[in-house]
């Protein structure tokens, strides 16, 4: 019994159930939002948990495929390593820790999390984390316990962070009706990409994304020490959280510069960040060697500028320009770094010049997109970062958010097919579509950027080609000469949308700042 959407009639909130029996005003969300945000959050999160536990019954990545298995085995292996070896050996090659077999390559907070989960596993199923003998361990109980660790991380970190964000965001935002709030909660909690990757494919993105979302909410309620602590924790859980760093950095810098005593403010933030990092990294700070050893594990540059078929700039253009042949890895490193900084510069500058909450949310989106599109060694799954920030803006740019979801999912389609997650992929996409369309239509977005002639038909063509590609990918064997031709086509299609989307959001962010400046002037005059 699903869901939330008990329908109801009445138009916007309160206003009396009886008054609104006119056709158009049926509002699916009224029923569950009439008791307030927290109650509707509770109801939706029950449904979101139900969906997560159902998805977790499907296979995980690399199920039954020795010798390397997949991400599930990697996470299990880390639990095995962390529960059996002292902390200092976690990142060091040794007799018991063969770094070529899924060596730990995330920062220490991931290791601690593996340690805690490993203890939980050891309590109920010791074979699944025994040193060495558990390699490739697969069992009913083992899978179940591992799935439960993700479910509980989601429940303990992502959900509270989402509640925190929703409460703060909608307190600041005037004029969001209760049903809009409920819709927004559903968009955040029923995010199909995150559910499929965490509970299907098997990863713990909910932790770092949850911590980031907590930091974002802290920005909105202006509690700066909390921002620094939460974001530093997110960074220490997954280095990929750095995708958001430019936005946090520029927004906080912009704000500090406006204070009476900018240096002192910056210092305060610096101390908060340093203290958090020192605590988390403590076991590795005793010698420089240890520290560098961990750092080198986090940045696997030897793996090349891209892997597989990821819809970013380097991989897509490599069809025409063979980057890997033209440049050496070190020079590619600097080129991609320069490209990433260049791409995120506009949004950073905007935030330094005129920091605002809304601009900050766009800034997150732009900087994470810049990283996704231009940085070194990007994974398909990294689309989760830009996607999270788009989710937070769902009420602002509903149409674009809808398209982004579709293409973000589509870009992971080959990956999820390999994991045998086709059914949850289709089901969750449809579920998302149903829930998305329960939103009441608002006035068309005022932005002129996407109003250029032919935009809609372009988008439609795009959409139909991608639908056809789904079918083709599933039914037709690729020609032997080009075994990955469909993956490449999917990549091109998604990349072209992502680029368009990135241009649009950058543009919107700059438009914002001119709005704000004019508003500021008005206020001053008053």
């Amino acid at each position, binding site marked *: *019994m*699903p*869901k*939330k*959407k*008990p*329908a*109801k*009639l009445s138009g916007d*909130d*309160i206003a*009396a*159930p*009886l008054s609104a*029996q*006119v*056709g*158009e005003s*049926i509002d*699916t969300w*009224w*029923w*569950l939002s*009439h*008791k*307030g945000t927290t*109650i509707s959050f*509770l*109801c939706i999160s*029950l*449904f979101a*948990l*139900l*969906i997560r*536990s*159902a*998805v977790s*019954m*499907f*296979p995980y990545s690399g*199920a*039954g495929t020795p010798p390397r298995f997949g991400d599930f085995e990697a996470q299990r292996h880390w639990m095995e390593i962390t529960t059996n070896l002292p902390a200092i050996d976690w990142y060091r090659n040794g007799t018991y820790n063969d770094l070529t077999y899924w060596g730990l390559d995330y920062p220490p907070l991931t290791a601690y999390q593996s340690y805690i989960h490993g203890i939980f596993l050891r309590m109920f199923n010791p074979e699944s984390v025994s040193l060495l003998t558990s390699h490739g361990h*697969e*069992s*009913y*109980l*083992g*899978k*179940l316990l591992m799935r439960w660790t993700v*479910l509980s991380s989601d429940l303990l970190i992502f959900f509270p962070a989402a509640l925190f964000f929703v409460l703060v965001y909608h307190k600041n935002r005037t004029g969001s009706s*209760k049903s809009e709030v409920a819709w927004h909660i559903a968009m955040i909690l029923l995010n199909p990409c995150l559910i499929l990757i965490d509970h299907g494919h098997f990863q713990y993105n909910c932790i770092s994304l949850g911590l980031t979302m907590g930091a974002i909410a802290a920005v909105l309620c202006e509690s700066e020490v909390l921002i620094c602590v939460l974001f530093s924790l997110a960074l220490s859980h997954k280095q990929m959280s750095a995708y958001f760093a430019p936005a946090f950095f520029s927004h906080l810098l912009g704000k500090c510069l406006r204070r009476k005593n900018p240096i002192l403010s910056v210092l305060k933030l610096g101390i908060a960040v340093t203290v958090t990092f020192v605590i988390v990294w403590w076991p590795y700070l005793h010698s420089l060697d240890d520290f560098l050893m961990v750092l080198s594990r986090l940045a696997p540059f030897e793996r090349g500028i891209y892997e597989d078929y990821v819809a970013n700039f380097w991989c897509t253009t490599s069809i025409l320009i063979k980057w890997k042949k033209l440049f050496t890895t070190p020079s590619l490193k600097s080129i991609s770094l320069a490209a990433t900084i260049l791409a995120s510069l506009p949004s950073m500058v905007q935030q330094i010049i005129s920091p605002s909450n809304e601009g900050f949310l766009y800034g997150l989106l732009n900087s994470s997109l810049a990283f996704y599109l231009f940085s070194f060694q990007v994974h398909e799954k990294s689309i989760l970062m830009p996607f999270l920030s788009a989710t937070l803006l769902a009420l602002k740019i509903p149409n674009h958010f809808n398209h982004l979801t579709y293409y973000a999912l589509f870009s992971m389609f080959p990956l999820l097919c390999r994991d045998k997650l086709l*059914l*949850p992929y289709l*089901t*969750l996409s*449809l*579920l998302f579509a*149903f*829930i998305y369309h*329960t939103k009441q239509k608002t006035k068309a977005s005022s932005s002129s950027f996407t109003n250029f002639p032919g935009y809609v038909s372009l988008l439609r063509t795009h959409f139909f080609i991608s639908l056809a590609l789904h079918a083709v990918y599933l039914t037709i064997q690729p020609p032997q000469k080009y075994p990955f031709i469909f993956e490449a086509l999917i990549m091109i299609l998604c990349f072209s949308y992502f680029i368009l989307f990135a241009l649009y959001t950058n543009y919107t962010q700059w438009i914002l700042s001119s709005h704000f400046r004019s508003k500021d002037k008005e206020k001053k005059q008053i």
Partner: protein
Amino acid sequence: MELRESSDRRLLLRFFAVATAVKLLLIPSYRSTDFEVHRNWLAITHSLPLSKWYFDETSPWTLDYPPFFAYFERFLSVFARLVDPRIVDLQSGLDYSAESVIYFQRISVIVSDLCLLYGVYRLTRKLEPMKRNLICALVIWSPGLLIVDHIHFQYNGFLLGWLLLSISFLQDGRDLFGGFLFAVLLCFKHLFAVAAPVYFVYLLRHYCWSGLSTGFRRLVTLGTVVVAVFAAAYGPFIYIGQIKQVISRMFPFGRGLCHAYWAPNVWVFYIILDKGLAFLLRKLGFEIQIPSASFTGGLVGDSSPFAVLPQITPLTTFAMVLLAITPCLIKAWKKPQPGHVARWIAYAYTCGFLFGWHVHEKASLHFTIPLAIVAVQSLEDAKHYFLVSIVSCYSLFPLLYEPREYPIKVLLLLLHCMVMWLGFAAQYADEKASKKKEAGELKSKFGIGCLEKSYLMGLVMVEIVSQFLHPFFLGIRRGCLRINAISTKWEPTKVVPQADRVLVRLEELAQTTSGGVLLPKAAVKFERYLTGEVISVGSEVGQQVGPGKKVLFSDVSAYEVDLGTGARHCFCKESDLLALVE
């Protein structure tokens, strides 16, 4: 108006779509033996002629539903064969568990739920939107239906859809058609017959009781319709002279008073009372025989399972059900109002559940679903429905005993409570109070009393104790018992069976599926076929069966013994062995 209609319909479809998404995600979940039962019926109806349907015993899961359901399976089997011919193969399809059969059968249930959707749509199309959506949410998202149909595996959604459809025609005043649909339903699943007295009295009074000539004409029409439906169902079997066999399959009174999983009905108290009295009397010095039969075993035989209290026969339960329904029959006769039909039908099914013979706990769906329609009629009804549906859903929990589905069943129930609470609160909003409080918080008259609250808290306590504390404490004590039992060891080859019995060492059962997932012990226990190697034989056993031979037999006829060694051993009669296997 037109606009509202279409937007209402869209909303209903959306409800259904969301429920369908959940159902699709539940496809890989645990399946009970009912899954194999229905697969076997597909095979029987597809590969055998009609005359053998009710005689086939290839699998222990013989066909025991009325003919329309068999026709329905025959219809499905046409598609099943297209999907994968092995599904409908009587022999090689046994215990078939490839993806093809799982997807096919699961999706057939999901598609047949369209019948439920139409039933709800027709039933609620004239109600105001609030009530209508509430009913849809309660029926389409019923946690009981999801648990029984889409996890456990049955076709209740489809059958209850017929029932709702029949009720909707009665409410429209189209009695003849409503009666017709109910007759059809009875030929799908005879357990729905509990409401037949209500239908009979209501139709007689409301449809036929109008003047002598019209009345008589209508009575004849109604009778003809019902006879025609039954003739369509049972006619072929009467024609080939198998009706006795069909009936005996459908009503296996040989099964005990209670089902293997006890349904929470009156007989549970009766049994407890009997045990208590026997215990008390024995303490007081009376000679009380300990009954040889058990309540939960499938076959009871002739001996009374009760030590003190009088034995209960199917006839007793039948009389009690009828007696319990009587008040509502009188009411139906006195004031045959179409608006109350749903209420009476739900009441009849409740009586059947409480007093019936060999009731399944799943039968509680028969009244919780129609009760949803009643629940929107008044505040009082809503309060009762709130409790009843929670308790009936909770009583289904033991069906899903595997840990993997534990979070799912708990979340389904919690979500149901939440939807009911929010929905009823909105439906019974206190308009005056909300006007005073402008904040927008809705004041509602809906709420439950202290007694009900403490009852629900009790349920929560029971769940916590049985799930978490009980295994913890009992685990330790069980460990001790185990050690005692094993302290005596026997050498298996020196154990000589008597008469025509053989001692078999069970083959290691597959601990993992082909996908590498470890099966829990409980799933292995429910495997119906066992194979093993004969260790020693009794003196009366024939030449064919000797030590070293591999045999196939059913767990029903095997008696497992613990000889203290690592392997598992069973005693089995020679005549119960199904086959020698190479």
